[in-house]
């Protein structure tokens, strides 16, 4: 009985707030941040290594970005789309051989030691460049980091490196870890990888495998009055269907990274007290890509690749697989990228007749059973959507006489099959666009990448013109010229189809109305949450 009254009261409160918000549209949600409280949210994976300086991936950032900070964070309105964090300013030299960072004063590590330029130099030279998955490419020419004083770090490059690239790489690649912790012993085996020590608004408190991660407030944080929250609990809920029920039962207040299945969003948006937010992921665009093994003689033929591109109904994919929470793609740079995207590329409208004609032209006639040839199709298992697109692609290919045999693997087996053993003809992959094509996009089509590097060109594709273009862009310092080269790159990729870009999607957060300052930067879910608060 009491349960009923409570739920009715919250219902009434909710509808009253709703009324208030419509009556006073300007002030409805502009509440002043409130201090204190514990934010409980859903986590769907449990990364073992929590060091974002080594493993620059969203799964790690989701937790450790609150503990370990970067030099700068992405921003909706900041200059060049950046907001300062540990660095206050950054300046690139005209010759592309150095970048100067001015660092924030009065910042302390969680163990009380002061943060200085020596930490930045150590992180860059000892971790980002040699060990980090993304830093290996971006910082490959980093020769030295000079520290004229405690608050200045000057990055010296052996070869001219575009400042635009370094700038775009800051939000994801520049996590600074403490030198005094990491200089003892082997960096990969340091216990701080599992219990990170940083400068961020929250300290790592504990991790119970299969249950939760707990972060507590850093009272010495440099941000004025920040953080607002006392505690953040990441409740491990690996089953995607359980996040929605947990939100409704008020066990958790936030489910980020589309932990609530897309098919449930329509229903859950009508639940009083919950809001569905599709902002805050603009800087983390995932691309739905058909990876192609060019070692197969049929797929080495451009006409066949064009036929496959014409056979895919991108609108259907967006509407059915992503339920509208995605956009169709034209090429290797997503449409929402403000700097590089160009729509001026060859496109492949959905046209089964044309696809069939192209295959006939290529000399692969339909056999008596209506089949032209058989392919092995490996959808990546990381997302429901990649698996479903695999099911769709099989049907789309059947319509043009290509018999695709699905092979399902778990994550580890998929990565091995595609990126090490090359035991695939077509694969469905979700690469991430990270604000600059040179960070993790050109590697998808560039030749000469050793076997076993995940999320890179392992399809045996080699195009000298494209390689030359990528090489030229990587050393072009002028921002406009560099941007133009990447527009050229998009054209060339869309024309020669080393892979087929189908759609671009991001994530959805579902939160209780009480959670404030959500989605206020383009990488919100993986930013530091110093200003996130709980009202009421």
């Amino acid at each position, binding site marked *: 009985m009491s349960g009923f009254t409570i739920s009715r009261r919250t219902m009434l409160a909710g509808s009253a707030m709703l009324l208030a918000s419509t009556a006073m549209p300007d002030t409805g949600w502009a509440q002043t941040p409130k201090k204190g409280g514990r934010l409980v949210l859903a986590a769907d994976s449990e990364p073992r290594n929590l060091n974002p300086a080594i493993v620059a991936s969203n799964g790690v950032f989701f937790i450790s970005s609150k503990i370990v900070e970067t030099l700068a964070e992405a921003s909706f309105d900041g200059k060049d789309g950046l907001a300062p964090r540990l660095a206050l300013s950054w300046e690139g030299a005209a010759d592309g051989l150095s970048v100067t960072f001015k660092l924030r004063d009065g910042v302390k590590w969680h163990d009380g030691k002061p943060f200085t330029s020596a930490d930045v130099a150590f992180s860059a030279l000892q971790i980002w460049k040699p060990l980090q998955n993304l830093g290996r490419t971006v910082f490959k020419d980093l020769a030295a980091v000079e520290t004229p004083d405690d608050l200045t770090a000057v990055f010296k490059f052996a070869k001219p490196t575009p400042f635009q690239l370094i700038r775009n790489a800051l939000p994801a690649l520049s996590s600074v870890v403490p030198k005094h912790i990491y200089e003892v012993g082997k960096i990969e085996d340091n216990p701080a990888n599992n219990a990170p020590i940083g400068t961020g608004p929250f300290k790592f408190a504990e991790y119970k495998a299969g249950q939760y991660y707990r972060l507590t407030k850093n009272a010495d944080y440099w941000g004025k009055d920040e953080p607002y929250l006392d505690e953040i609990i990441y409740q491990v809920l690996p089953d995607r269907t359980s996040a929605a029920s947990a939100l409704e039962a008020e066990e958790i207040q936030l489910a980020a990274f589309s932990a609530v299945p897309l098919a449930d969003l329509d229903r859950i948006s009508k639940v009083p007290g919950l809001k569905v937010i599709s902002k805050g992921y603009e800087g983390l665009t995932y691309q739905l890509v058909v990876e192609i093994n060019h070692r197969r003689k049929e797929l080495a033929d451009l006409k066949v690749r064009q036929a496959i591109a014409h056979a895919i109904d991108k609108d259907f994919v967006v509407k059915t697989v992503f339920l509208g929470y995605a956009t169709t793609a034209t090429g290797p740079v997503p449409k929402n990228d403000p700097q590089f995207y160009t729509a001026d590329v060859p496109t492949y409208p959905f046209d089964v007749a044309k696809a069939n004609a192209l295959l006939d032209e290529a000399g692969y006639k339909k056999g008596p059973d209506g089949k032209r040839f058989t392919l092995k199709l490996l959808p990546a298992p990381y997302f429901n959507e990649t698996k479903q697109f695999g*099911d769709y692609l099989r*049907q789309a290919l*059947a319509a043009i006489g290509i018999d695709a045999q699905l092979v399902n693997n778990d994550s580890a087996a998929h990565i091995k099959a595609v990126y090490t053993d090359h035991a695939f003809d077509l694969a469905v992959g979700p690469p991430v666009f990270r604000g600059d094509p040179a960070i993790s996009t050109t590697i998808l089509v560039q030749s000469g990448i050793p076997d076993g590097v995940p999320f890179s060109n392992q399809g045996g594709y080699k195009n000298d013109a494209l390689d030359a273009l990528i090489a030229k862009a990587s050393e072009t310092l002028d921002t406009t010229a560099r941007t133009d080269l990447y527009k050229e790159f998009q054209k060339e990729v869309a024309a020669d189809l080393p892979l087929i870009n189908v759609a671009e999607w991001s994530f959805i957060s579902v939160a209780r109305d009480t959670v404030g300052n959500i989605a206020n930067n383009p990488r919100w879910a993986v930013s530091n949450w110093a200003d996130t608060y709980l009202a009421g």
Partner: protein
Amino acid sequence: MSRFRRFLRTPEAVAGAIILAALIAMALSASLLFPGDPQAIAGPALLPPFQDWSLPLGTDRLGRDVLAELFHGARTSLAVGLAAAAAALAVGSVVGTLAGFAGGFIDEVLMRITDAFQTVPSFLLALAFVSVVGPSLGIVVIAIALGTWTGPARVARAEVLSIRERDYVASARAIGMHPLAIAFREVLPNALPPVLAMSSVIVAAAILTEAALSFLGLGDPNRVTWGGMIAEGRTVLRTAPFLSIVPGIALVLTVLGVYLAGEGIVETTAVRRGLQ
């Protein structure tokens, strides 16, 4: 004839037989009623059942015809169930007969192997096998048989132990028949009935194991399976529950039908034995 009539007199057995017959009819008619690929996209996505009579049970998340998938799924379920049970019974009775008839060292070795297989939960064994070798229909059948042949083996051995002391076995030995010929021509056929009585349970368990494997994504992805359909539907359980419920009901009915029909057969044969 009288056995058939006795079978007809047990209502559960009749119910089981009817369900089973309907299933077999579904499996056999799948290609006739729903020619072409059952996984082809046939209409708008997530169409609820009983809205459009050309798609009576609606469509799934990609717009595939649920009824067509159900019919083709019946085929996979029955095929896997029967094949796995047949394999398990064949391997089990051969191993059991050899062990029981040979005795001594061979018996010890074979029975310890059986023990080893029995100590591992059969579902885990199937799971491990499929994840190592990779999912395809044949592999799934082998994986299920791998965990279920031990039951028939033990029953067959026990039966053979008593049969091998009978006079007709002694006389077969006396006329100089090869021991293997005695084992498989004289002993095995007589040891079979109690082993076969287990078949209904084994088929039912095999169908369930196959569904569970498919549910976990370890079924053959190029074939429609009921377990796979339930797994697909699970992501939209709250908005389109019918996608999981329909194949779920089919699965329950199948297992029930197989079990009831099997029990009916066992019972009628038991009665016959009792009367004699």
